[in-house]
């Protein structure tokens, strides 16, 4: 397993009860996992704990080693960076970099030649459908455009991994600012990326989008994992009502299930 979480609990200071309690999950290579659940259920906190920004009780293993172990030396930290990417929900870059320069930051100073760097940047900007924005200033882009540029940056970062190395990609609501077309485009891209030796874990809000693209859905609620399994098994009105407190109706249109 690329990422293993065991007995993880998160409690914010001064909170009465823990946000998450004794959660155990593991994530395999090649799989897209959608993290779902009502507002405030701890999806983003779980992601932040996994990415090491939040204090927690319990254990998180990345590629078989504990998280703290990876950050002990600068060499290991850099080695982890090329196979472990995070796309945050918001980006607040106040300085006038062009989109192309932002994507290039993902490649860092590294060992690539200038030409190779240029090719990689173009490749990932094309895939995230932002190549036409390459010379625009990043702060002047719309929210959705920024998100796609940042996705291209994270993907270019993961392209630095050695061939055959397994990778982890964390996405915090990657579709929140996107229009309809790009929601589908980005999730299709994410599925492609999972096929390239990567475990993808994405916080998502839209159940139907998650069901359509994810290989596995994990529903959080009341501090625990409420359901974990294949989308078809989880997209059930009873279960959704239990987690979200809203009863939807399941419809079936040309092979795709959707909850309305």
């Amino acid at each position, binding site marked *: 397993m690329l990422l293993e979480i065991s007995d993880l609990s998160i409690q914010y200071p001064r909170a009465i009860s823990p946000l998450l309690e004794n959660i155990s999950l593991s994530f395999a290579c090649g799989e897209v996992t959608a993290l779902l659940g009502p507002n405030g259920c701890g999806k983003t906190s779980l992601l932040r704990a996994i990415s090491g*920004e939040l204090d927690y009780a319990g254990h998180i293993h990345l590629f078989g080693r504990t998280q703290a172990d990876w950050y002990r030396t600068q060499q290991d930290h850099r080695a982890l960076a090329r196979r472990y990417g995070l796309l*945050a929900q918001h980006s607040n870059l106040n300085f006038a970099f062009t989109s192309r320069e932002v994507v290039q930051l993902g490649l860092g100073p590294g060992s690539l030649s200038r030409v190779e760097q240029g090719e990689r940047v173009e490749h990932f900007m094309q895939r995230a459908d932002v190549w036409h924005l390459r010379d625009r200033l990043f702060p002047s882009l719309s929210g959705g455009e920024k998100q796609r540029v940042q996705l291209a940056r994270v993907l270019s970062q993961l392209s630095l991994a050695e061939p055959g190395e397994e990778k982890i990609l964390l996405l915090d609501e990657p579709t929140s600012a996107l229009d309809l077309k790009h929601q589908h485009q980005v999730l299709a891209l994410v599925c492609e990326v999972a096929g390239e030796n990567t475990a993808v874990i994405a916080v998502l809000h839209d159940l139907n989008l998650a069901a359509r693209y994810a290989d596995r859905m994990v529903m959080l609620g009341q501090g625990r994992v409420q359901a974990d399994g294949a989308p078809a098994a989880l997209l059930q009105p009873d279960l959704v009502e239990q987690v979200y407190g809203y009863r939807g109706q399941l419809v079936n249109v040309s092979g795709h299930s959707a909850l309305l």
Partner: protein
Amino acid sequence: MEFRLSDKSLLPALIALLLLGSCLSLAVGAMTIGWGDVLAGLMHWSWPSILDQDVPEQYALVLGEIRLPRLLLGLIVGGILGVCGAVMQGMFRNPLAEPGIIGVSSGAAVGAGIVLVFGAVLGAWLGTHSEKLQWLLLPAFASTGAIFATWLVYVLGDRGRSVVMMLLAGVAISALAGAALGMFAYVATDTALRDMTMWQLGSLSGATWTSVLVAGLIFATSAGFLWSRANDLNALLLGESEARHLGVDVNGLKRQIIVLNGVAVGAAVSVSGIIGFIGLVVPHIVRLLRGPDHRYLIPYSGLLGGLLLTVADTIARSVFAPAEMPVGILTALLGAPFFLFLLWQQRRQIF
């Protein structure tokens, strides 16, 4: 396409301007010296037997002992302020951070004030070595004050996430420093008082070869170290967690920046007092010309900072010649409206 100058045009232009500004600064002043005499005077001062030509003795003295160290000090202090402004803006991820505005220079001034006022007490205790120690103690105390102030503003400003808190913390620290300096003024001797007034206004008039040497060494080392972290600073602009995911040791980087910045600003303040707004204006201009990439921003800010302070100092000491105006007044006069303009531009992002 975004407007960016290439290094091929920007670097030669900046160096040419620097040379021009330097010559101007050597020639202009209470005693105007012709272009030819500047060169002859300098040569005569550095190596009296090199020329057969007769150069007035006072030219050599004014150039070698007063104007040249002052010019070099201006380039160094301006460079420090430019580089530190650029790096601090990177760390705070906001173009409004500046040593003067967020109280770092004030912190350094308090450190320097302690040495100036209590130096006499310290001197009696240390005996005859106090004179030699003063040039070491002054930057050391000023740097400590600057490091402490930077750390405080950074923590209070929610680690670069809150611009409002950063600016308000700067206001509070400046007020506190003002009170401390005012208190020092009451117990200070006349000489110390005069020194302190100069400190608070900011002036290069105290330039000596010792101060040039000390500030120059500190500038070269700290700016060099900071430049070597340019790639990591670029990553930091994306955000702290993003930078960490890109393999940057964020805490180590921030510690290094706070200490190196503090040492450099402390050195600058201990030789010239609080000269504001250079660190604000210079990186802004460089970003407009060359973009926000720290690999270029840091060296160009150093060069442009030196140029700007030298020109400002030349103007400040020649408009009311033979009296001279502290250069800090001039930079504040030009820089403060620029700060207001930036605030106005950013008003939507701040609140």
